[in-house]
């Protein structure tokens, strides 16, 4: 093993011709570096970007952020905030829960109806639709109708007790 390594070490004596070495060195060092068009463009873009960023930084520091007023793309100087508020208040959107009846005997029967005060309110449309609709017979309504026929409701029972 060591003999082999010793033999391999003999190859370290190999040297290049001195004339070749000198000539090659001069040629390589004297060679102009090739630069593609993309390299040049990339370098210029890098330089331009760094200058632009440095400029923005300087403006930000010395301008004390007041420059943002001019740099903002959308100017809102024509915006009338009081007018907007008044407009918002004029819109009458009132929805009230009314006529909530709770029937303990039959279970639960509830109805909600929006206020009819506003002519433009969507409740009006809802009310019209609901008045046109035929009352559907549900188990609960059936129960209430039967209750009114045979048994007393709490209100009626209370009225009778009061008498």
């Amino acid at each position: 093993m060591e003999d082999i390594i010793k033999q391999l070490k003999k190859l370290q004596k190999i040297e290049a011709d001195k004339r070749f070495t000198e000539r090659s060195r001069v040629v390589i060092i004297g060679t102009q570096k090739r630069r593609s068009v993309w390299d040049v463009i990339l370098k210029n873009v890098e330089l331009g970007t760094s200058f632009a960023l440095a400029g923005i930084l300087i403006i930000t520091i010395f301008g004390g952020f007041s420059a943002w007023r001019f740099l903002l793309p959308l100017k809102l100087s024509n915006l009338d905030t009081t007018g907007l508020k008044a407009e918002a208040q004029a819109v009458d959107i009132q929805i009230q829960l009314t006529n909530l009846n709770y029937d303990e005997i039959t279970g639960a029967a509830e109805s909600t109806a929006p206020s009819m005060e506003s002519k433009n309110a969507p409740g009006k449309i809802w009310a019209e639709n609901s008045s046109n609709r035929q009352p559907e017979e549900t188990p609960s309504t059936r129960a209430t109708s039967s209750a009114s026929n045979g048994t007393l409701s709490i209100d009626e029972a209370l009225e009778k007790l009061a008498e």
Partner: protein
Amino acid sequence: MLDGEVHIIKRAVRGDSSAFGLLYDHYQPKIYRFALVKVSHREEAEDLTHQVFLKAWQSIESYQDLGFPFSSWLYRIARNHVVDYYRTKKVTESIDDTDPEKAPVEHSLNSDLLEKLEVERVKNAIRKLKPEYQDVIIMRFVEDLPIRETALALDKSEGAIKLLQHRAIKEIQKMLGENVKY
């Protein structure tokens, strides 16, 4: 490693040709030896060495110091050039047919004839190895590169280099042993 190599490389990357000249002076003999053992002819080894350093100078801007030695970067370029050389070159003479006594003797080897023949015999034995065995033998035993640097140059793990080294030594031992019998 060259004294102040990191600084010299930085200067060379910035385009300082004199800095690259220092790198050339230090690494050229190693790359030349590598090329000469890989290809049999002196002129072709010179040509390859020249191309390797030209390529290195042209693309040194892309070199990044990521903890890899500069030599491993150069050896990679050299290996690629050797591969290209064998891909494009029409080999007219079989390596097996090369007679060590007829092989060209280096100008610088002016010692006695037996010594030259011994060097040629070892060179020829290396050339008969697989390319990856050749690389490991040259880098580890001719250029005395540490395992880590060899692994980086050959893009392999340190374990793989140890294994390749073991196999390559066994192979070359067999070859040189057989030659001795003649």
